[in-house]
């Protein structure tokens, strides 16, 4: 439940209205309210808390308590702009206070220095709208550190020789190693690689009001009952409320940013739970609705003044979607790992973060050792090819494999491709009669090549680990995205970007965007850490602009 100590009326012109309470919105709410501003956060989903989080899958999944509800918010998919999109559950994101950080894996990698300036190093890539960031790793480093210390990230500084420079160690030691981590560590070292304890946004030591991880095993996909997962909900949202200047308002479906005749944003229009419409007035508007809903909201806010959608003079709103490439290899071992216990990941390696150009593959990836099956998902898709699909053989395989299986998950580069996008479906409407979100996506050929290459390395690691049986998921074009990156990219050129390095839209001076849509490159997966670091930095930039009166003119 909300611990709010202040409520505002929609007619009150607050300093900031923030749309979305997830990884970025929560940080912005905390920072801006701490800095003395009056803030309203409008969240599409419900306000749930630790008492609402159980291991009862019916409550979590049957009612989609934590994630987007495609029965009322349908999504359509097509591969290319020439195709007719069809309804398909191709996007998954958090829809509750705390957003996707409530149910995420909590892998917390920093980007590396190369991620910010890769285009300068390698040049143009055919078919990609490849660009450098307008900021560097050094600009963001203090904010990465702030994330780690403020929300609580466990890890071991210096354990990876590939890590970028850091100004402080992690605030707490790594989580315990799992069987998958031990097997991965031994195998990768045997092959000459450099595994390290996974940096995770999960507490290995308790903090005030929050427990350390109890290794319950219901982690990825679930909310944490003891607050060990360092979600926006368990950290910055509560800090924001304690300032007495921030109201978190749940169950508010924002569907339009209103502007005045001067082209300035005046607030956010939303449906409340009873479908009544309100305009929350604010001096400035910040969209942190995620890389799918932020561009959708801008496109829904089209007007005579902004016919292509708000802040879309570049035409780049919604474009350059980068969901990260991936591959998964599976291994079954002779003895029980019992890897269903605990969080998902305990060991990672970044030896492939920047691949040798001689390979002919751009970018790179990181590999982690994990187990993220439930009993049901293992039974449906976690058994080796050739396993009997029913009967005594099926049952025997379940009995043998559930405790003996581990995965190596490969996360990699997605190149930005202009046609890969989120847009408004011209035909399908949501339950409020508004155009549905449409995803257009086909992997850049490089990314499939990369996935295939990483898959081969993962299979070699399973061999070196002594897997009795190993196999991999097919490498194929992706039709499902959870990393919603790049769709309102940051840049200095208003013709090829939507926001500047202050997260201010090029077109509307008091409209800011900060979430996965801001990223210019995809990194190698695990974007939440960067999204939060950007949010801390954006808070500083926006605060400075507001304090010098730059938002009120």
């Amino acid at each position: 439940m909300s611990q709010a100590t202040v409520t505002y009326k929609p007619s009150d012109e607050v300093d900031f209205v923030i749309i979305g309470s997830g990884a970025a919105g929560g940080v912005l709410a905390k920072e801006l309210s701490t800095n003395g501003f009056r803030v309203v956060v409008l969240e599409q989903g419900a306000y749930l808390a630790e008492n609402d989080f159980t291991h009862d899958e019916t409550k979590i999944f049957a009612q989609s308590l934590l994630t987007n509800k495609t029965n009322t918010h349908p999504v359509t998919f097509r591969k290319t702009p020439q195709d007719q999109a069809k309804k398909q559950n191709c996007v998954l994101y958090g829809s509750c206070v705390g957003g996707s950080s409530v149910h995420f894996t909590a892998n917390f990698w920093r980007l590396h220095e190369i991620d910010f300036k890769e285009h300068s190093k390698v040049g143009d890539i055919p078919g990609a709208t490849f660009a450098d960031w307008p900021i560097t790793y050094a600009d963001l480093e203090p904010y990465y550190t702030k994330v780690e210390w403020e929300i609580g990230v466990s890890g071991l500084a210096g354990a990876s020789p590939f890590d970028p420079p850091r100004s402080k160690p992690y605030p707490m030691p790594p989580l315990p190693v799992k069987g998958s981590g031990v097997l991965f560590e031994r195998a990768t070292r045997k092959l000459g690689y450099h595994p390290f304890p996974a940096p995770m946004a999960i507490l290995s030591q308790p903090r005030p009001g929050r427990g350390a991880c109890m290794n319950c095993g219901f982690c990825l996909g679930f909310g944490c009952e003891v607050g060990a997962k360092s979600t926006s909900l368990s950290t910055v949202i509560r800090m924001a409320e304690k300032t007495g200047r921030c109201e978190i308002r749940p169950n508010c479906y924002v569907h339009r940013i209103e502007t005045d005749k001067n082209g300035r944003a005046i607030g956010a229009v939303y449906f409340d739970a009873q479908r009544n419409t309100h305009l929350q007035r604010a001096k400035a508007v910040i969209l942190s609705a995620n890389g799918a809903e932020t561009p959708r909201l801008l496109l829904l806010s089209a007007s005579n003044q902004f016919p292509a959608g708000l802040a879309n003079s570049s035409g780049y709103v919604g474009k350059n979607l980068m969901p990260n490439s991936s591959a998964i290899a599976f291994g079954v071992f002779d003895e029980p790992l019992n890897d269903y216990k605990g969080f998902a990941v305990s060991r990672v390696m970044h030896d492939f973060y920047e691949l040798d150009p001689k390979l002919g593959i751009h970018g790179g990836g990181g590999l982690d050792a994990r187990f993220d099956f439930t009993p049901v998902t293992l039974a449906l898709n976690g058994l080796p090819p050739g396993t009997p699909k029913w009967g005594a053989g099926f049952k025997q395989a379940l009995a043998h494999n559930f405790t003996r299986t581990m995965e190596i998950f490969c996360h990699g580069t997605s190149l930005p491709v202009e046609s890969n996008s989120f847009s408004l479906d011209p035909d399908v409407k949501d339950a409020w009669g508004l155009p549905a979100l449409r995803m257009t996506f086909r992997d850049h050929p490089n990314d499939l090549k990369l996935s295939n290459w990483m898959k081969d390395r993962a299979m070699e690691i399973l061999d070196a680990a002594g897997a009795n049986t190993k196999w991999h998921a097919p490498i194929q074009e992706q039709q499902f995205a959870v990393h919603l990156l790049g769709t309102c990219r940051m840049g200095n050129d208003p013709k090829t970007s939507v926001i500047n390095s202050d997260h201010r839209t090029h077109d509307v001076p008091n409209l800011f965007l900060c979430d996965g849509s801001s990223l210019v490159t995809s990194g190698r997966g695990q974007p939440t850490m960067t999204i939060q670091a950007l949010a801390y930095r954006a808070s500083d930039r926006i605060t400075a602009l507001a304090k010098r009166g730059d938002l009120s003119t």
Partner: protein
Amino acid sequence: MNSFHSARRDFLQLLGGTAGAAWLTAQWPAVVSAAQHAHDAAKGKQPATFEVLTPDQARELDAITACIIPTNETPGAREAGVVFFIDRALKTFASEDLLRYRQGLADFQKLTADAFPGVTSFSAASAEQQQKILTDLYAKVDLNKGVPRRGVPSGTSDFLQTLHFDTVFGFLVDPEGGGNRDFVGWKLIGRDPAHSFSPPFGFYDKDYPGWQPAPGETEKK
């Protein structure tokens, strides 16, 4: 295509992708809600009779699901209450699937009668006959890859796909939410029902000496 079946097909599609298995659980909504009803029933709300299935249909379903996860030296679908799980699903969230089940079970009977003249139902068939029927049907369904890339599964094969998933859910879903009665599914697979755990978790981490940097590992690459 009703919403429940659509959701299940999407779920399957995700399973076949590389998005990460646990993400896929977020696509469960309809299926797992059946578990809540089964859970309620396990707490004493269980009706004396099935709610939507006729005795004939329940008998057929029992026979089929008991072939999918048989009872041998350990409990199977029957002991986990899978048929009851399905009955409650069809009564509630998956009521749109009731016609598919009715048609599917009728198809099973016809298939049985066609293959083995004189045998009027799957449950009346011999074990060998049942094995033959299911072997033939499963051969037509690619469960691992999920939905066909083109077209929609139809007829008995589609029904079998539906029934297979419902059987797995009823057998293995978290007992906290229902199904998997007396943890029979989890006992089979070795899933400890405890609420928290301490390391070491298994065989390979029990002698782990603690993190040690490899020689030269701290050297900057």
